[in-house]
């Protein structure tokens, strides 16, 4: 089927990806941009593994068409960490045992990042409500809730003292496995 070149703004970098109308954003990110941090679990909207931020909102990339994300600001797990250190939410997941096999983790982290941008001090109940669309088969959730609570505290502390860690690192394209979608990262001048 005919492919269309779509421009995706991912983690501060601009990508041109050749997609078919029925390609999902999850596929375009993984196969087109080589950003395989976004996982595909159920591929049916039930597990939240594929969560990315689209214009700041947590969105299921398995149920979003790549063409529909054209022009939007997309953030994936690869865009969170700085060159030297993890984003506070990632660090809290590692330190609190919020990640075991890790397959669900990128989705939980992205959902949590969106929550903490809206609500700097969520209660445990608010955290549970926010992550209700993310499933984890390993941790039993308690440590994930702990991690989000810790991350919230770290971010609050950072915002009152030291410079808060920010996202925005454009990820290297990585190896492109050829599953049918082709992507090319635009030169720096073309980036937004």
């Amino acid at each position, binding site marked *: 089927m005919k492919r269309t070149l779509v421009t995706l703004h991912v983690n501060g970098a601009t990508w041109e990806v050749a997609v078919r109308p029925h390609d999902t954003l999850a596929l375009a990110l993984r196969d087109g941009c080589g950003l395989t941090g976004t996982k595909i679990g*159920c591929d049916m909207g039930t597990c939240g593994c594929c969560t990315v931020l689209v214009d700041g909102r947590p969105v*299921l990339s398995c149920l979003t068409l790549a063409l*529909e994300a054209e022009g939007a600001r997309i953030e994936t797990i690869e865009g969170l960490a700085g060159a030297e250190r993890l984003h506070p939410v990632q660090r809290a997941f590692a330190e609190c045992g919020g990640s075991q096999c890790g397959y669900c983790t990128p989705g939980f982290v992205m959902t949590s990042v969106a929550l903490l941008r809206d609500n700097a001090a969520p209660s445990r109940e608010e955290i549970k409500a926010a992550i209700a669309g993310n499933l984890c088969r390993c941790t039993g959730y308690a440590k994930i809730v702990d991690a989000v609570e810790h991350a919230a505290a770290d971010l609050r502390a950072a915002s009152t003292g030291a410079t808060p860690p920010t996202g925005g690192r454009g990820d290297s394209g990585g190896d492109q496995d050829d599953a049918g979608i082709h992507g090319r990262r635009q030169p720096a001048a073309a980036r937004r």
Partner: protein
Amino acid sequence: MMILPEFELLRPRSVPEAVAAARAARGRFDFLGGGTDLLCNYKWGINVQPTVISLRHIAELRARTNGSVGGGVTLAELEGDEDFLQDFPAFRRTLARLASPLIRQTGTLAGNVLVDTRCIWLNQTQFARAALGHCLKADGPECRVVKGSTDRCYANYSGDLAPVFMVYGATVRLAGPQGERVLPLSAFFALDGIRRNVKAKDEILVSLDLPADARTLRASYQKFRVREAWDFPELAVAAAARLDGDRIEELHLVANAVASIPLWMEDLARGYVGRTLDDATIDAIANDMTRAVSPVRATLLPPSYRKQMVGVMTARALREIRGDATAA
């Protein structure tokens, strides 16, 4: 991985453009809202069309004003609209228990009202359906739930918002090749799991509009589901009443997710106008509601259990409306 089948994607910018695109596709298309229902069905290979017309780029469908909600408004936007929730409080808990927060980010109002009917036979992969044998709703000659039925599908209506809009007295605004029309939402659904409603294929659901006096109704939606984190209703009851002290001045009831459409129980409800909303009346209405529904085995739980639970949920809804603190 669940690969989507091939289709052409059109992205009109206005309602007339979308209507024209639909007309040109001659019935072989689907509209796309948030895609959280349609794309799942496509991944299962259910009734896939060659053209998909996305309605996500039409500003008119995103409008929200004073009791009128555009079909393209997302469930998350509605959930965050404090004015709307204060005017129509029954939506607060309904939205919070609808699907998951992630699905609510993209799922739209129109997509929710028009969500396809569900069935344990149907909502499976193409592979599983081929092995089990196809059914009337997709690729087969007869219904598997009600054996021998070759002209009616009994799949379950599972949208959570329509029943609440119905008991609040909403109207639905449709736009099609013949222009616009408005009809009561209570007259919108048509009993059959395939046809589901009276909307023509090329009509767009523009908005749902709530009347001003709906703000003085007391309403409740009681949903029963298997999982608490996210799940479709196994059954639900919506109720709204206007009370004068404890006397019922107006009563509206919908039994949801026990048939292929939300069941509008207007005659049953009218019989209780003028009565006192005491325990005896609540029990009588609950019993009548139980008797009035006949669910079939299209969902996970046994139909006899779902039928009984309609009474329980009716009583809970009415107790909440009466102001009992214990209503779940």
